[in-house]
């Protein structure tokens, strides 16, 4: 290849179209929704049960109940002890994975396709007949308490916990750590677990997603066999009033003596999953801090070397989740990093992204879409998202077109409407003796210094 031809990036070949694989939708008489997708590249299958049983349903006094109930499913069923259950699942190569978030609990497993019948039978047994033996619930509660203790000493946990607490008004679930506190987890017992299952593990509002080397025509009878006897109406679904704690800018340092880095969080209340600006916001966030070549990363990492990386995220949920920029920087450059980050955010909101940036972000987001849909687990998780957020089954059919149709004006409007530089709370988890003075030097008013225990634990306090 000649020198001259090497100096120009090659042009793209002909585009091959990508279609989200067809989703077969069905529903059992008891209301359980079924979604199945045939992907036959390898003899593997993922089954994912989505329950309308997230942490956001719970008030502060019961925080952690959804997470703990999910964790306690491994304690055994009416038919099997916890050990026997683990043996049965793992002998067919199916590790059980239980994930609890703000909006749902998912119980899922993947296994070789010829073991699907056994696997779905075990999945049903775990969810419909959990036993919650005293001894196992006590063990798992103890593990959760130890995990809370770990979070309270972890630099990432300390900064994130303080940031969420300072973002939301007292009593908003999103202001507390997902897994609850020592105080709220303390009283958890088998009765609480069983009560949560009766209230929220119900066929109406739930969905079973099956993706992989399986004939969708056979999925219904398989699901009917194992889940047909499940009964119960719809569980609770209270609305979320995700009110902000403050509309003023502030800086809080959570002190960790001799910390070699500062964990920085900058943010405020963001948007719900249902926002009409969803696609425009994805574009805006990509420009700000959602890709390697984002403004924040090119500034803080590639220009200044302050950090290994920085990112911005809109954590969209049923209610307004947080918008948060996060990074970890050297202690001596903490104030410089905060100044640069805030400057990038402020400029983006004031001037908007450029046409070139919007183009690049749209191409990136539309292009990576199929890259994130290679595995049965990835496809199942995407479909589960439709069930949790009441989105139509054909939602992904024009997903890439909707990304590509975001205009420069829409992106500018989304940036202005959803990012409010004057209302940002900056949290710095680091050595206050080193960073307080330089942060005050930024001229944004008083820098509040807190001991970590104030934000690690005291969110249940009514101040």
């Amino acid at each position, binding site marked *: 290849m000649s020198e001259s031809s090497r100096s120009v990036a090659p042009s793209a*070949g002909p585009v091959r179209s990508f279609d989200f694989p067809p989703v077969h939708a069905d529903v059992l008489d008891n209301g359980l929704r079924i979604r199945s997708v045939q992907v036959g590249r390898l003899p593997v299958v993922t089954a994912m049960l989505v329950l309308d049983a997230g942490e956001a349903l719970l008030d502060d006094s019961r925080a952690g109940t959804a997470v703990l109930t999910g964790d306690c499913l491994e304690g055994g069923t009416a038919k099997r002890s916890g050990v026997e259950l*683990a043996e049965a699942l793992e002998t067919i190569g199916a590790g059980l994975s239980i994930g609890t978030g703000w909006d749902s609990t998912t119980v899922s497993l993947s296994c070789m396709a010829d073991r699907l019948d056994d696997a779905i039978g075990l999945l049903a047994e775990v969810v419909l007949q959990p036993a919650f033996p005293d001894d196992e619930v006590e063990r798992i509660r103890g593990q959760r308490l130890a995990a809370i203790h770990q979070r309270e000493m972890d630099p990432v946990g300390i900064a994130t916990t303080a940031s969420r607490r300072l973002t939301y008004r007292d009593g908003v679930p999103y202001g507390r750590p997902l897994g609850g506190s020592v105080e709220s987890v303390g009283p958890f017992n088998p009765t609480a677990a069983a009560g949560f299952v009766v209230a929220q593990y119900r066929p109406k509002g739930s969905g079973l997603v099956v993706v992989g080397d399986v004939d969708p025509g056979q999925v219904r009878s398989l699901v009917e066999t194992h889940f047909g006897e499940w009964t119960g109406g719809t569980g609770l679904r209270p609305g979320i009033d995700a009110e902000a704690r403050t509309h003023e800018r502030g800086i809080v340092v959570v002190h960790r003596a001799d*910390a070699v880095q500062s964990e920085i969080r900058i943010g405020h209340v963001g948007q719900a999953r249902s926002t009409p600006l969803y696609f425009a916001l994805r574009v805006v966030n990509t420009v700000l801090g959602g890709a390697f070549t984002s403004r924040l990363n090119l500034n803080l990492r590639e220009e200044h070397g302050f950090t290994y990386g920085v990112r911005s995220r809109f954590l969209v949920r049923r209610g307004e989740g947080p918008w948060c920029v996060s990074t970890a920087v050297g202690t001596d450059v903490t104030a410089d990093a905060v100044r640069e980050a805030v400057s990038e955010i402020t400029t983006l909101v004031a001037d908007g992204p450029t046409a070139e940036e919007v183009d690049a972000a749209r191409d990136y987001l539309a292009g990576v879409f199929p890259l994130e*849909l290679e595995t049965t687990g990835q496809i199942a998780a995407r479909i589960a998202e439709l069930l949790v957020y009441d989105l139509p089954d054909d939602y992904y059919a024009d997903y890439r077109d909707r990304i590509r149709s975001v205009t420069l004006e829409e992106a500018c409007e989304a940036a202005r409407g959803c990012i409010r530089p004057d209302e940002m709370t900056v949290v710095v988890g680091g050595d206050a003796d080193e960073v307080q003075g330089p942060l005050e030097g930024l001229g944004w008013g008083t820098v509040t210094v807190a001991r970590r225990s104030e934000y690690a634990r005291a969110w249940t306090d009514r101040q």
Partner: protein
Amino acid sequence: MLSIPIERFTLDNGLRVNLSHDATTPVVAVNLWYGVGSRNEREGKTGFAHLFEHMMFQGSEHVPKNRHFELIERAGGSLNATTWFDRTNYFETVPSHHLELALWLESDRMGWMLPAMTQGKLDNQRDVVMNEKRQRYDNQPYGDWDEWIQAMVFPESHPYHHTVIGSMEDIEAATLEDVAEFFQTYYVPNNAVLTVCGDFGRDEALDLIERHFGEIAPGEEIPAIPGDLNLDPTIGATVRERVEAEVPLPRVLMAYRVPPYTDAGFYAADIAGSVLGTGRASRLYRSLVRERRVAKDVTSFVLPLTSGAGMLLVWATGFPDGDPCEIEAALAAEMEGLSSVTDQEIKRAVALTETALVRQIEQVGQRADLVSMFDQFFDDPARLNGELERLRAVTPADVSAFVSGFLGAENRAVLTYVPATVKSATPGVA
């Protein structure tokens, strides 16, 4: 059981090339393994292989700084690189019509990296890497465990004695001359494997690879790995360290020298590791977490290293008031008790590994990485297809022999973390 199609070629300059076709999704992975890692670092240069990996993203003669990322992200692709003991890998997954872009970018930095290097770029990436070390190791509870463990399991003369991230002093001391020398020595086509996996036309891909990589000159023979690779199969004693640190919970780690990945004995070690610590029915979870309740979590893994020995590692994290001695005794009992492994336990371990491997190769990027690995380590990329059979062939007698040979007290490194009293919760009070 696996039948991944793999075609292998070698260019005149020594570059090994593997093509693995799968048109299920219109994406293609480009994956490059260079046969250089932290094991090739000399004294005073620890962490350099990893710092060099960062410099590979700082542009090349025809690609300005940041352009590599911009072009791949614009194309809707993902990319990264990792440095490990025995190798460094670089990879892109892109929509299939952008295959040539990825090949051009990889070839430009393989052939034309040095003209783009500047002191400013090196200074910037030294800062980034030092912040990576702070974030991932120094500012993390237990974050320095591998520094301790590697130094305990491998003697100072062995290249696995030091970590991939290296020391702050050595990172800080790196120069542009080091960059040039490292590039000319190791980043040569005869020290690399290129795998393309996914949706592509065979002849077109071969033509593009020849066009972009064919003119890169081969380098000299790769120098021997520094240090002494001859190792006793075992450590020869129980070695122990106790670290008081700002950690929330006590944790006991145990590490063992085991046969290297390139030795047939490795598979018994791998199965033993899964029987011990993979899944909720594993021995460690069942005993330490579920029944005796001395640990809140347990972990086990086996590092498939190739130079002299591999390493099997387990750890258990205790409760706030837990006694590390009790955790250590419980771990040791399970390690030694593994000599009585059953057929059923092996069956469970193989079934979990099978699902994990098949799920891994669902992604063309992961599949390409495995093909490159088998080529680099075994000179046999298609070995991937027989990996499960090698695990299935392990018998209880093999595991027993492995346990009596390797998991006893004469081959044990024990690292104990105990929570130190928190220095100062109140700012301004020393």
